[in-house]
């Protein structure tokens, strides 16, 4: 499975309704193997691939995601961040930014290769190309965001809209039950 991510100029041509994420398994920041579907369980997911702790763009974007955390923690959704960093590095970065969600580690770059998400212009770190996918619980892609250039990344309002869309689709009681 190779995922193509939308170019900034072609943003609306996302991969919703056609792509479903591979149910990959990677070690989390504590070293436990975690499968994507288990992490999603029955909730909408913000799945983020990032270069690494060292990238200023990632640091800036993480500050935004952490700002969303106050809402996300009561809104029944999941956030998952994936990089090529080892679990102990991910754990330190996670603690440093104050993130309360799961970080996954792909130091062998096996999942990166399967997904076709290597940033080919970085021949030193071979990181993930920055990308964000909003997913239904069954791992179908709702929207994709190409974060190679910073402005291609989703705003918090776009993420809110995506979470609202997915939640409305999956929660049978979106319209509050009436007597």
């Amino acid at each position, binding site marked *: 499975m190779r995922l193509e991510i939308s170019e900034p100029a072609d943003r609306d041509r996302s991969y919703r309704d056609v792509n479903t994420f591979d149910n990959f398994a990677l070690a989390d920041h504590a070293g*436990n193997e975690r499968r994507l579907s288990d992490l999603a*369980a029955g909730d909408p997911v913000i799945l983020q691939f990032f270069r690494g702790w060292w990238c200023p763009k990632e640091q800036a974007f993480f500050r935004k995601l952490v700002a969303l955390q106050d809402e996300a923690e009561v809104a029944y959704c999941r956030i998952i961040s994936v990089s090529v960093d080892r679990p102990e590095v991910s754990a330190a970065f996670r*603690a440093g930014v104050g993130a309360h969600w799961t970080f996954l580690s792909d130091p062998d770059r096996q999942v990166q290769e399967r997904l076709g998400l290597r940033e080919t212009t970085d021949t030193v770190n071979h990181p993930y190309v920055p990308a964000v996918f909003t997913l239904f619980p069954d791992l179908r892609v709702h929207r994709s965001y190409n974060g190679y250039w910073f402005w291609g990344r989703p705003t918090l309002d776009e993420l809110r809209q995506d979470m609202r869309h997915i939640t409305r689709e999956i929660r049978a009681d979106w319209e509050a039950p009436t007597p």
Partner: protein
Amino acid sequence: MSWCWFALLDAPAEDATAQAAIVGGGWLAAWQRRAKPVRNARRIDARIIDPVGEAAVVSLVLPPKGVRLPFDDLAVQQARRAVLAGPPTDAVSTLLRDASHFEGAITVMRDRIVDDPFARIFPARLLRVEAGLFGRMPPPCGPTIERYGSAQPWPWDRYELS
């Protein structure tokens, strides 16, 4: 089932699904059934129970007699946040008697003893528990701190089962 019954006992139970002795006295027991087995039983996340689980150190937090605190109290919210932020343990569950009160928590540790955020709410006892009761469960995905229905002990993480 997403939850089962859990209780601190003076002597072993005849009908428990799993139980283990506490070093120094007492027993901890779990029952996987709907009917409440003993008067002081509380609901616990079922994933924490494993009849073949290894011995462990557990931090058991229980409210003092006569004290009741809403599950949605800010202190309980903050403790749940701190669990997500802190170093992972082998398992954790809040304890419930009804849909609206925080009735304690249990944290299972083996490799290292870590801070228990729930111990800032009510007194905690650090207990050495024999094998046969507590397993390992994956840490919550995060960042959700809410329960999936008021009958479910946090961190049970989905709506499908009850």
